[in-house]
């Protein structure tokens, strides 16, 4: 996805951008380089991404190559730990690399080892993330709770606890954690977004709407937050579309597409909005643009076997 600077004025905008807005956005060419979301170091906010394999090899062959490459990255780190088994720095480096290479369980084991040497809140946070990555949610919760003993109401820990509850489909508990995180840090943009997601999941659409609206009153401070900000706008549009507030949905989508001209979902939603507003030709343009972006994505993914 390509982002331009988010525009906080969207919520105050009274301009009706349906139609002309589409023409504007369809004409937009991306002028900013893609920005990878900054990994908010300790915030559990994303799933792993997949490597692209070659279509010329079987998956098993590709896997063997990837595994060999991973081991070559890990070998010097393992050697460093072997040489200096009490070095927190060496263990942390190994644990992080293992995590990045998707060896989650082994990463968690290394962070457990690190905790014995460096029982700091930082390590607890890292270990919590490692446990979460390894699907050991109960262990992660215990670890985060221990960190909360050191730093009561730590918003990041509360956020991460919320993420675990969300993954378990315990949306009420997730919303509660996110609310607590927001109480501790009212400008915690990611927590507002996830609160909206949790409330939407339990079909509390009014409160979800408010949570996403709150995001628009905050200032994104990095690329990751900028992406979440745009997604909050998209979610508002999506809720408006669902509730039949098509004009307002169109306004949000116009703004989403202004700042993120390759937001596929926004084109798709825009097509639906325009259909509902009785503008099938414009709707078709939006859907065609969506299809174009989808095709581009599929071409990128085709090398991995699927779309």
């Amino acid at each position, binding site marked *: 996805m390509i982002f331009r600077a988010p525009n906080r004025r969207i919520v105050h905008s009274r301009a009706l951008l349906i139609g002309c807005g589409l023409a504007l956005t369809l004409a937009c060419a991306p002028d900013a380089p893609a920005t990878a979301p900054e990994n908010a170091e300790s915030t559990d906010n994303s799933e*792993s*991404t*997949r*490597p692209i*394999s070659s279509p010329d090899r*079987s*998956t*098993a*062959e*590709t*896997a*063997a190559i*990837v*595994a060999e490459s*991973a081991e070559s990255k890990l070998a010097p780190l393992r050697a460093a730990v072997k040489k200096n088994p009490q070095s927190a720095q060496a263990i942390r480096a190994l644990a992080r690399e293992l995590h990045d290479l*998707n*060896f*989650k*369980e082994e990463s968690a084991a290394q962070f457990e080892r690190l905790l014995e040497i460096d029982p700091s809140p930082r390590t607890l946070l890292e270990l919590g993330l490692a446990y*979460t*990555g*390894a*699907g*050991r*949610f*109960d262990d992660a919760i215990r670890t985060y709770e221990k960190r909360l003993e050191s730093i009561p109401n730590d918003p990041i820990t509360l956020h991460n606890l919320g993420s675990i509850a969300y*993954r*378990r*489909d*315990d*949306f009420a508990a997730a919303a509660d954690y996110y609310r607590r995180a927001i109480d501790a840090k009212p400008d915690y943009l990611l927590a507002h977004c996830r609160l909206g997601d949790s409330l939407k*999941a*339990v*079909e509390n*659409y*009014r409160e979800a709407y408010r949570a996403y609206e709150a995001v628009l009153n905050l200032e994104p401070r990095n690329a990751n937050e900028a992406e979440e900000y745009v997604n909050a706008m998209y979610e508002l549009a*999506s809720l408006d*579309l*669902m*509730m*039949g507030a098509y004009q307002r949905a169109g306004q949000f989508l116009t703004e989403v597409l202004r700042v993120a001209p390759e937001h*596929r*979902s926004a*084109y*798709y*939603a825009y*097509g*639906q909005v325009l*259909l509902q507003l009785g503008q099938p030709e414009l709707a078709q343009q939006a*859907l065609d643009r*969506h*299809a174009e972006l*989808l095709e581009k994505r*599929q071409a990128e*993914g*085709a090398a*991995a*076997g*699927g*779309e």
Partner: protein
Amino acid sequence: MLPRIAQRWLALALLLCGSMSNAEMRFVDSTPGSGIEFKAVSGAEPGKKGWLTEGMGNGAAWLDYDNDGLLDLYLVNGSSHQRKAGAGEPNKLFRALGDGKFADVTEKAGVADRGWGYGVAAADYDNDGDTDLYVTNQSDNVLYRNEGDGRFVDVTSKSAVGSSPWSASAAWFDYDNDGDLDLYVGNYMEADPKKIPRGGSPEAVSTYCTYRGIPVFCGPLEQRPEQDQLFRNDGNDKFVDVTEAAGLKLKTPRFALGVVTGDYDNDGDVDLYVANDSVTNSLWRNNGDGTFSDVGVATLSGLNSDGRAQAGMGTDFGDYNGDGWIDLIATNFSNDFNTLYKNLGGRYFIDESRVAGMSVTNMMLSWGTGFHDFDQDGDLDIFVANGHVYPHVDNHDLGTSFRQKNHLFRNHAGRFKEVGATSGPGFNLERSFRAAAFADYDNDGDVDVLVTALDDRPLLLRNDSAGIGNRIQLRLVGKKSNRDGIGARVIVTASNKAFRRDRKGGGSYLSSSDPRIHVGIGAAKKAERVEILWPSGTRDLLENVAANREIRVVEGSSPAKQ
């Protein structure tokens, strides 16, 4: 008049309040004592599975193979990677004896295929008056022709419909409207375990074959997808692969799992919907000239409302909102919702999952599904079979489980509420369910469900609901059209309300259901009109049809006045 937005809020509020009326439905497990002695085999036991081939389950078909008026049951079985090809567990045919009892007649009938089986499609492809069987396998598929004397003959070689990669669901339908049934085969992905890393191995983990951090067997996205196939029936057991000529060949195939046919745009020819795993679902519009166009994305039925591809498993067509246009359901992976697409006049579909109450995100992973009027109140309810694909989830605290309960979504004026918990003991059972085949197997008038389960015995859910509505049941016999009447549209009018039902090909997941048309008409004692629009264009009209009995309608026997 409330403004539209207020109306929608109100509708959702009502939905959340659960203000549904009507009697409770009741389903019981009638498998014990039924004589259906069957345990599915699908690779290694749950804790030792290493590939996705071992997690997809097996299908079932309801068919009256001996034309005695009782529906018989065909169950597909699997194999394992340790066994040689052709040495899997045999498929089984259970002949209905009446009173809910069945007898194993597999050997006598000659349908004990021992390939690694997945799906089955039952229909009378040779128009000789008895139902034939097509079985999909991990390697070559099998076509059994019913000889009409209780025996089947394997005509795979002669018919040339056997050569397929790993196939999932298949559907019989008359795409070229020449009066005989053609065959669509949905193919999934590379199945060779030598070409796919074993789940849990370092190679698999390093290539992200993980789920929520847990090493699991590798999913489809890293594998080679297989091309679906369309076989044209040229008569005399001869079929021709017309996939490419019909415009169905894709640059990048799409991991097909569920297939259903129906005329979504009411233009008189039969279209095709394919639920694909992890990529865009396909809606193939029949152009009426022997070709199809891929309109899934263009009609908004290929993706959900966010423009996101989901992990499609099972699917079905059905007019759930009574507007005369068939809508779609597609079941999906866990932590996602099953998607309900409302048909907007045959040109677009809108993802109505949230508005209609289907989108409660849940931990269920869903497979077989169907639109059926279980309470016979006149609107179509939805059944969903659930079960996780990864046995590994039981060893972790993810909040989900390998074995799951099935779901029953009751329709109330176009909005759904999940009522499984109050629908009898049959819905309290937990297994890793897969396929669902629907039928009034006990001929008591209501719709029952046979649900298969991974590495387990099937569940026969008998509908014992009391106080439900009346129904019209039709057995269609085509003359100019294909004999099964697949592709026919039925419009029943009762108490001045019209109900559309279709004789579909395929549907659900890996399964074939009751060939009869079942229409709930609520409290009405009769239907004022029953109109059948046959694929040939013939229209039959029956008037003042009494409820609660089965009617056999032969094409052209009650011609409607033009």
